[in-house]
């Protein structure tokens, strides 16, 4: 049925993307487009799965039943997002099992930010408020992605992330109205999460190996700097409105550009952390491996029950 040359197929593909049409599973696509999407979507899925852990640790200690229920729901959402993204990546031909193996063996990368510790309750609120605000700006952009299954998953995820931000902000407001100790706890948490959160949007374009290609194919539609700037413009006034400080003396509004200026994070730190050498990388992967091994009897039991039912 299809006897078009590679050149014609590529030209048609480029034209389809340029017109703003979505690419769907089963469409012809350049090998690099497929590869780049598998890389991005699987890293994104891993980030959701590992992202459960820093906050999940606080479930037993959440102050009050309502906050505990909310936190359980949020962490469950992260698991759901991970699964949605694995099924989106699978439409490109890589199995969920292969992706999970890469995560468990430490071969895969995931978001830097989940390799930092959460020593205080304020960290749970700050992750919801700062980290998830940054994530939503990125994900709202990805909801426009040229790959249909990724864009569809993102729409659903963005809706749920809105809940994550609001519950985080709500929990920080409660602390902000509290004692001087509680306010100090929030400020300390902002200080620790500020730069890791800025790093989340990725290195500047000149250091990013992937940006140019991803933008050409509309896998993403904004540069890392654009996403980071949007986040800063949105979050700085929110932080200051609650009477907290942005831990960057050079962070100020440039009246001419309308953008907040800011100090660049340490890009070497980002590199180290995503390559496995962050404060909690080992702890996170050990926890994931243990959960995977501990759940094995359930998967085995289901497989046996299924075999019996089929017999």
């Amino acid at each position, binding site marked *: 049925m299809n006897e078009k040359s590679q050149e014609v197929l590529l030209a048609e593909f480029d034209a389809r993307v340029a017109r703003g049409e979505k690419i769907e599973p089963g469409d012809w696509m350049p090998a690099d487009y497929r590869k780049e999407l598998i890389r991005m979507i699987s890293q994104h899925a891993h980030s959701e799965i590992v992202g459960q852990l820093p906050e999940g640790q606080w479930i037993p200690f959440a102050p009050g039943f309502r906050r505990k229920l909310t936190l359980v729901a949020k962490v469950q959402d992260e698991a759901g997002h991970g*699964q949605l993204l694995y099924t989106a990546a699978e439409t490109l031909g890589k*199995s969920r*099992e292969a992706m999970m193996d890469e995560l468990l063996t430490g071969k895969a990368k995931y978001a830097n930010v989940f390799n930092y510790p959460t020593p205080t309750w304020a960290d749970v609120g700050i992750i919801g408020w700062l980290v998830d605000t940054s994530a939503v700006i990125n994900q709202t952009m990805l909801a426009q992605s040229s790959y249909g299954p990724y864009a569809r998953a993102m729409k659903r995820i963005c809706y749920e992330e809105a809940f994550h931000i609001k519950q985080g902000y709500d929990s920080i407001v409660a602390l902000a109205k509290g004692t001087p100790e509680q306010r100090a706890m929030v400020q300390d948490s902002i200080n620790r999460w500020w730069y890791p959160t800025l790093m989340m949007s990725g290195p500047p374009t000149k250091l990013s190996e992937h940006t140019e290609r991803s933008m050409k194919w509309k896998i993403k539609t904004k540069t890392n700097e654009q996403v980071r700037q949007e986040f800063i413009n949105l979050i700085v006034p929110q932080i200051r409105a609650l009477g907290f400080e942005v831990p960057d003396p050079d962070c100020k509004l440039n009246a001419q550009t309308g953008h907040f200026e800011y100090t660049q994070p340490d890009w070497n730190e980002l590199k180290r952390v995503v390559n496995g050498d962050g404060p909690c990388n080992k702890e996170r992967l050990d926890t994931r491996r243990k959960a995977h091994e501990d759940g094995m009897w359930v*998967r085995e039991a*289901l497989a046996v*029950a299924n075999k019996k039912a089929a017999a």
Partner: protein
Amino acid sequence: MDTQWETYEVFHQTKRGDPHVHVGAVHAPDPHMALQMARDQFARRMKCASIWVVRTKDVARTDYQDETFFAQILDKSYRDPKAFEAPDKGEH
């Protein structure tokens, strides 16, 4: 241990009378578990009257590459209600 269960496509009906809409896929060892997974994944927050799951490999699909399948050779405006004049409402 193989965790690579089959995938099931999930169709979600928000309320009685609505169509079932495709919302994504879940991994499951059998259809019964697929329904449970689909409930946890797609109905833990959204209102839901009914869910269907279909084994992904059982879905027959058209080929995006096959441009002839949906080709419209003839002018099919005669199928369109807008191609005809509306009845006179008699408001003269």
